[in-house]
């Protein structure tokens, strides 16, 4: 029963990593790539680390894994948002967004 839960969580984590990678490769705009990368960061990593925490049981390593999960939940969407905001401000400064911008971005 425990092994079934571990295998299910690992399959979910690898599936979300693969979906995020396909999104990073095949999308055409930068913001779409950032949107696909955020799914890779949050859900894939959290499901994989949760599978390892279930395998460890009640131990000190599982507490450290839960701390790593909380830290990933806090820091990674913030990093994605800050990268996207930097790119948006750069394009506003370049006048690429709005009327009469260049098309090859």
């Amino acid at each position: 029963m425990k092994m079934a839960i571990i295998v299910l969580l690992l399959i979910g984590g690898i599936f979300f990593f693969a979906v995020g990678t396909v999104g990073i490769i095949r999308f055409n705009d930068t913001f779409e790539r950032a949107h696909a990368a955020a799914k890779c960061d949050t859900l894939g990593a959290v499901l994989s680390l949760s599978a390892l925490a279930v395998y460890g049981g009640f131990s000190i390593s599982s507490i450290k894994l839960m701390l790593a999960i909380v830290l990933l939940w806090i820091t990674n969407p913030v990093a994605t948002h800050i990268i996207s905001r930097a790119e948006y401000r750069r394009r506003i400064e370049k006048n690429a967004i709005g009327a009469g911008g260049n098309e090859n971005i």
Partner: protein
Amino acid sequence: MNNILTISSIALSFTIIMCMARAVKGPLTVDRLIAVNVIGTKTIVLIAFASFIMNETYFIDVILVYSMISFVASLGLSELIQGRVDD
């Protein structure tokens, strides 16, 4: 259990290689930064898998430090991107 973690590590390494393709041929620097950020997250999970394959518990401390350093690196590189007008 070791077989399951080994197969998962191989699949995750394949996704890391596919992300390196975007990091090499991104048209802008932002695409490279996004791909490198995702590669950092995947290496965190890969170190966790290696920790449970080798039965070494002190690799999990490496995970915590690596995630914090990756976050600070993303902040610094995004500050560098903002002032760059010529792509």
